C-alpha cells in the first residue's frame, strides 16, 4: 500500500533523527546535564512529569493507530460497524477520569516543587552564601561582588559547593538571567532586585546567557560562569584587585551605553552602585536587596 510505504520511510527517518539526537552528544543537552542542586531537581521534575504524561500519551498513540487500522473501510471487513453508537457513560467517565488522575498527580508534584524551588528561597547549606549582584545592560552583563569589592563584565566566577545569592536587576530593557547547567532563569527587570539562589557542585565552565530579547546586540549576551575551588576563587579575587582598574561612576555610565563588550575586570566599584541602579526608577520596589541602601546615592547629572 502506498501509505504504509510512506509511513515506513517516515519511521526510518525518525530512527535516524533519534540516533542523531542520542549518540555521543549527551553533554550538549545542558538542561539535562545539570551541575548544581537546583538544576538537578528541575531535571528530575522534567523527567518525572514527562513519564507521567507518557502514561496517557503512549496508549493514545497506539490506540489511534489500532483504531484507524482496524476500522478502515475495505472489502470483506469483519470489524463491527455501529453508525448510531454515540454515547457510553462508562467510557466517557473513564476518559474524563484518566486525565483527571494524571493531572492531579502532576499538580501535586508541581505545587510542592513550586514552593521548594522558589528562586528567592535560600539554599540549605553549612556554608555561608556569597552574594553576586547582576545588572543587565545593553548588551552586556555587569557582575558586582559586594563582599569581595570587585566587578566583572560578561564573566562570573564563584567557588564550588557554596550557595550563591544572585541579586538581579536591569538598567536596560527586560532580560532574563540564565545559566542552564546550574538552574532555571529569572527575569532581570529595572526598578527591582530579583533574587535567584544557585550553586555549582562541580568545578567547570558553564554557559550563561540572556534569555529574553533586548534588541540589536542581544545575541552577544553570553557569558561564562566558572566554578572553581575556594582557594582558586580567592586567588582570582586578589588578582583582579591587584591588576585591574577601578569602575567609576562615569565608567559605569559609559559601560551602560548601548554596545557589546568583551570580558572586563574591575578592582572596585562605586559604593551602592547596585542599590542606586535599582532605586533610580521611580516605581522601585527595593525588596530583595541584601544591603539596604542606607545612604541616598544619586547620579549627578
Amino acid at each position, binding site marked *: 500500500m502506498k*501509505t504504509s510505504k*510512506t509511513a515506513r520511510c*517516515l519511521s526510518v*527517518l525518525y530512527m535516524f*533523527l533519534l540516533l*542523531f*539526537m542520542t549518540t555521543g552528544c549527551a553533554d550538549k543537552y*545542558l*538542561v539535562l546535564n545539570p551541575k548544581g542542586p537546583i*538544576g538537578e531537581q528541575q*531535571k528530575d521534575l*522534567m523527567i518525572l*512529569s514527562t513519564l507521567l*504524561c507518557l502514561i*496517557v*500519551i503512549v496508549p493514545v*498513540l497506539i490506540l*489511534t493507530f489500532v*483504531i484507524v487500522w482496524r*476500522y478502515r*473501510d475495505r472489502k470483506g471487513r469483519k470489524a463491527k*460497524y455501529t*453508525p448510531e453508537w*454515540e*454515547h457510553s457513560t462508562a467510557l*466517557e467517565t473513564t*476518559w*474524563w477520569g*484518566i*486525565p483527571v488522575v494524571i*493531572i492531579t498527580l*502532576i499538580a501535586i508534584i*508541581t505545587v510542592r*516543587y*513550586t*514552593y*521548594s*524551588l*522558589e*528562586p528567592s528561597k535560600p539554599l540549605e547549606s553549612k556554608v555561608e552564601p556569597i552574594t553576586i549582584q547582576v545588572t543587565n545592560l545593553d548588551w552586556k552583563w555587569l557582575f558586582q561582588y559586594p563582599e569581595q569589592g570587585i566587578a566583572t563584565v560578561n564573566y562570573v566566577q564563584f567557588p564550588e559547593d557554596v550557595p550563591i545569592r544572585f541579586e538581579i536587576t536591569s538598567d*536596560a*530593557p*527586560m532580560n*532574563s538571567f540564565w545559566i542552564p547547567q546550574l*538552574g*532555571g*532563569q*529569572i527575569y532581570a*527587570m*529595572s526598578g527591582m532586585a530579583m533574587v535567584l539562589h544557585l550553586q555549582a557542585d562541580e568545578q567547570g565552565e558553564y554557559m550563561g*546567557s540572556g*534569555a529574553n*530579547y533586548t*534588541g*540589536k546586540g*542581544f*545575541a552577544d549576551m553570553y557569558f561564562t560562569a566558572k566554578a572553581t575551588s575556594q582557594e582558586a576563587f580567592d586567588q582570582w579575587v586578589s588578582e583582579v584587585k591587584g591588576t585591574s582598574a577601578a569602575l567609576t561612576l562615569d565608567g559605569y555610565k559609559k559601560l551602560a551605553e548601548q554596545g557589546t563588550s568583551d570580558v572586563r575586570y574591575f578592582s572596585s566599584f562605586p559604593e551602592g552602585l547596585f542599590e542606586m541602579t535599582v532605586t533610580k*526608577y*521611580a*516605581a522601585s520596589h527595593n525588596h530583595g536587596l541584601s544591603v539596604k541602601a542606607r545612604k541616598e546615592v544619586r547620579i549627578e547629572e
Partner: protein
Amino acid sequence: MWDKAKEFASEFFVTGDPLIYGADVSIALTLIAIVSVLTYYKKWGWLWREWLTTVDHKRIGIMYILASVLMLFRGGVDALLMRAQLAMPELQFLPAEHYNQIFTTHGVIMILFMAMPLMFGLFNVIVPLQLGARDVAFPFLNSLSFWLFFSGAMLFNLSFVIGGSPDAGWLAYPPYSDKTFNPGYGQDFYIWGIQISGIGSLMTGINFIVTILKMRTPGMTLMKMPMFSWSVLSSCIAIVFAFPILTVTLALLFIDRYLGGHIFTLDGGGNPMMYINLIWMWGHPEVYILVLPAFGIFSEVAATFSKKKLFGYKSMVFAMMIISVVSFLTWAHHFFTMGSGADVNAFFALSTMVIAIPTGVKVFNWLFTMFRGKVTFETPMLWMIGIIPNFVIGGMTGVLLSVAPADFQYHNSYFLIAHFHQVIIAGVVFGFFAGLYYWWPKLFGFKLNERLGRLAFWLWNLGFYLCFMPQYALGLMGMTRRVYTYGWDKGWFEMNLVSTIGAVLMGAAFIVQVWDIAHSLKKMDREGTQDPWNARTLEWSIPSPAPFYNFATLPQVTHQDDWWEKKQRGWSAPAVELEPIHMPKNSGIPIIMSMFWFFSGFGLVFDWLWLAVPGFVGVLACMIVHSFNYKPDYYVPVEEVQRVEAAARRGSK
C-alpha cells in the same frame, strides 16, 4: 527643496537593503499587473459590484481566505529567511536588525493576519450554511469587519517598505517597545495595524454569537447544532471578552509612545509588568480562540469520514465551554520567571493543567468516533488523523511547560518555540487545512485533486516533524529564542540544519497546494460537488457553490445530523411554494470607511494630523451616512429564485 525631499524620502522609505529593494520592485510589478488586467478586461465594475461591496457571507469568507493565503506566503517567506540565517553558525545572511524585524513580523502576521482571517473565512463560509440561515445576523457589519481586517493587515505590511518594520517581538513588551528604545515608526505601524483589524475581529465575534443564537433554522435547537458551529460559538465568546483587552492595552502603549505617557515606562511611575500581564490576558485566550474552531472541524471531519455519529456530543460541548472560560485564567504561565512568587505560580500552573483535561477528553471522543466506524482516507480525513499524534505531543509538552518550577528551564528557549509551533501549526493551521479541503467543493463548486492533496499532506507533516522536533532538542541544549546567530562552540549546528531542511519542505508543501488549486481550477471537476463526502450537516443539502440566498426554502430540522438522517430515510424535498426571499443590499460604505481608518492609522504612525484628523472625520461621516440608510434590504422575487435554483442544480449534480 530637493535636499529636503531627499531627506524625507530616505526616512520615509526603507532603504539600504537589497532584499527590500527586490520586494519594492515585485510589489510594484504585481500592482501594475493587477491594475492592467482589470482595466484590459474591463473588470473594475464587476470587482466593485460583486466583491468589494458585497455583504454575502460566502464571498466575504472567500476574500478572508484569499487574504490569509497571501499572508501565509508573506509569513512563510519570513520563516524561511529566519531558518536560512540559522542554518549554520555565524552566517552573515541577515544582520541582527533585519532578523529582529523578521521574527516580529512573522509572529504578528501568522497569528493575526493569517490564522485569524483563515478562521474567520471558515466561520463566514460555513456557519450560516450549517445553521440553515440566509446570511449572518449583521451582514453590513460583517463586510465592515473584513475591510477593517484588510486595512489593518495592509497598514502593517506597508511597514516593510515604508517607515521600517517593528522589531520588538510579536507582543511588543515594553520597555523595549517604548519610544526610548524604539524610536522608529515600526512600533506605531504595529499598534495601528493590530488596532484597526482588532476592531474588525471583535465585531466578527459579536456577529457570530448573534447569528448562532438567533438565526438557526426551525427545529435546530442548540443541542442539535453541528459541532463546528458550537466551536465557533465558544471561540466567539472568548473573542468578545479578550479583544477589548488587546485594544485597551495597545491604546495605552500608544499613549506612552505618542503623548509621552508613563503607563508602561520605567520612569515616572510606570510599570512594564502591567503590560505583560494585560497583553497575555488577551494573548492566552487568543490561542484558544484559534484552536477551538479547529476542534470543531476535527469533529465534523471525523464523523463524516467514519460514517458514524460524533461520539460524546454533550461532553464535547461541555469541554469546549470549559476551555473557553478557563483559558482566561491561565495567562501568567507565560511569565512564571517574573518573580511573582510561589502562590501565584502555583495557581497559574494548576489552572493551565486543568485545561489539559477537557482537551484530552476531546481526543478520546474523536478516537471513539472512528471506533466501529467505516474510516476512509480522503484528504480532509488524512489531515484529521495526522493531527492526532501531532496535537497529542504538542499538548504533552504544554503540560510539561506548565510545571512552573521546570518552566524556569524551558522558558524562552527553543523548547517553548517548538511547543507553540506544534500546537499552532499542527493544531490550528492543519485543522484549518482539514476544513479547507473538506469544504472546498462547497465553497467553490469544484473538487481539488486528491493525489496532490495527499502529496501536500505528507510534505507538510514530514517538514513539520523535521523542523520542530530538533527545536525541542535545541531548547534542552540551552538555545534561546530570538538570537539571530550562534557560535560554532555551542554545538547547535546539526539540529538547526535539520530544522531548516524541514522548513524548506513545508515551503515546498505550500507550493504543491497552490499548484493543486491552479491545476483543479483548470480542470474544473464539478461532478458531484453538492455532497461529495456523503456528509451529515445542512450545508451539504444545497447546491455547490451555494446560491446567494443559500436556502430557497428554510429546512425543517428534526435530528442532530439532520442531512444524514434525511438521506437515510430516503427523504426528498417536498414541493413547497417558494416565497420572495428577504436579503441584505450590498454597500460601499464598509470599504470606504475602512480606507478612512487606514489613512487615520497611517497619519498617526507618522504624526501627520493633517491626514489622521480628516481620516477620522471620514469614518464618522460614513457612520452618519449609513445610519440614514433606511433601505438596507430587498426581496428576491420568486421567479429569480426559481431561475437560480434550476441553474445551480444543473451545475453541481
